[in-house]
């Protein structure tokens, strides 16, 4: 394992030091507990948005803290969900009196820790609403399982709910909009290579030179099946078909198409994939009205991609277009 780090157990703290040095003018960074907060938080009267999760998915979530998106992010250790005390500290730091939304990806760890944090925040008189993301169609969904993982849609929830909060919407409204994004979005991912966490020093799974892993998550966990590596057109079909069937997306739907890199795949290739996504979407009669292409929710240095489709309506589209001013996503500002 070769990485640009000083020591496996310092990587998150060191990266936070880097973020502090780079963005200290717009973010408050705490190392104990790990925390990133908008410099101007709490914004009086505005619903606060807190997200969090394991590190190793950068720019998610720290890169999305700023005007028009998150008020705070709680980074955990690499691929390890953060702890309730971080989340509580974040919640208190961003509460401007209008309540706080927790954006939680559906992983047992994230869910349990955020539950505890919400309990604790409630105990301190802060109203918390939770938006759970679970958009990964690669995972079987049933009451008797942990359910689907939250993946690509999380970025879209953070942007769109963030804009709703910035627009002065109420706690319930912001949460409802976030949940709508989740309900109308579907994702699926694949990997060409595994990743290596600093702590383990070993590949998260083994893949032959001619194999790809389909239905991968964002934690280096193995996917649902592996198959012979094929052209980008086949990869795109493999991911788009279950996405399109699941919601389902129908001819005439307006969508946002998001092609996400897993961290180690060149942008050149993501555009190759996007060309295929656009082709398949057109064949289904979908109108891609907005798009996002790049490394936005990653799995360390994993090579691969995920595709997310979000069904748009006027409100979601307006909030997507609203100004955002964060280290990793910025427009209109």
């Amino acid at each position, binding site marked *: 394992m070769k990485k640009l780090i000083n020591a496996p157990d310092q990587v998150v703290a060191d990266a936070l030091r880097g973020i502090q040095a780079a963005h200290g003018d717009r973010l408050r960074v705490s190392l104990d507990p790990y925390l990133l907060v908008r410099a101007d938080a709490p914004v009086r009267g505005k619903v606060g948005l807190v997200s969090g999760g394991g590190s190793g998915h950068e720019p998610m979530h720290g890169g999305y803290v700023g005007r028009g998106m998150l008020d705070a992010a709680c980074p955990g250790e690499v691929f390890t969900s*953060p702890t309730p005390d971080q989340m509580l500290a974040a919640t208190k730091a961003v509460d401007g009196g209008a309540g706080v939304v927790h954006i939680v990806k559906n*992983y047992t760890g994230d869910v349990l820790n955020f539950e*505890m944090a919400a309990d604790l925040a409630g105990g301190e008189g802060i109203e918390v609403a939770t938006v759970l993301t679970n958009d990964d169609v690669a995972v079987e969904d049933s009451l008797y399982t942990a359910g689907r993982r939250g993946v690509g849609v999380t970025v879209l929830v953070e942007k769109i709910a963030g804009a709703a909060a910035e627009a002065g919407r109420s706690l319930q409204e912001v949460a409802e909009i976030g949940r709508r994004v989740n309900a109308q979005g579907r994702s699926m991912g694949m990997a060409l290579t595994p990743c290596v966490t600093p702590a383990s020093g070993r590949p998260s799974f083994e893949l032959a030179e001619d194999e790809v892993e389909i239905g991968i998550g964002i934690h280096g966990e193995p996917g649902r099946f592996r198959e012979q590596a094929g052209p980008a057109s086949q990869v795109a079909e493999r991911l788009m078909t279950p996405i399109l069937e699941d919601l389902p997306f129908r001819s005439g739907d307006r969508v946002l198409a998001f092609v996400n890199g897993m961290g180690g795949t060149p942008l050149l290739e993501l555009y190759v994939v996007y060309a295929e996504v656009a082709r398949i979407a057109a064949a289904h009669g979908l109108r891609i009205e907005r798009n996002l292409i790049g490394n936005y929710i990653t799995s360390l240095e994993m090579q691969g991609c995920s595709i997310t489709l979000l069904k748009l309506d006027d409100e979601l589209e307006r909030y997507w277009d609203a100004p955002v001013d964060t280290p990793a996503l910025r427009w209109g500002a």
Partner: protein
Amino acid sequence: MSVAIDQAGVRRWMDLFAQAMSEHRQELVALDTAIGDGDHGTNMDRGMRKAIEKLHADAPPDPGALLKAVAMTLISTVGGAAGPLYGTLFLHLGAGLTDRDAIDLAAYSAAWRRAVDAVQARGSARAGDKTMVDALLPAVDALERSESLEAGLAAAAEAAREGMLATIPLVARRGRASYLGERSAGHQDPGATSTYYLFESAAEALAS
């Protein structure tokens, strides 16, 4: 003379458990890499290391308070699924034992049962879901069936070990391994494994 568990005994247990988490860190990481995200060993080791550090600085006077202190440290340093689940376990175990100088089998068994119930309430895992619950349940059953603390903890450790091994063929229905579906079968659950070490440490602490 009947044996009881006191503050020093719990303290010894926690030291041994911390030691086990450090020694088996790579093993737990490897198990979690196969069907999860590879952090279980690192998480537990980090948490227990911190817990022992805190106990060094300031050890609460009774067994229950000590376990609650460990719970709080785990909750705030482990993260992941294991943090809240082990935190919940220790919190409820401690709650049943607070303000006691010495714990007998009856009190101990009762506290464990409440602790396991709390873990199940928090995580919704049932027997056979391929989680730490699969080691916890048989261990607590064995404890309840025993005649003495010594015999009980030895039987619990053995039952936990069997429960841990029995997770191998299971298809996971909770936690991160459930995303693998059928592919999770054939692998031992990391959380059940750390739970086995917890009971092994408890038996050893009592014996020493």
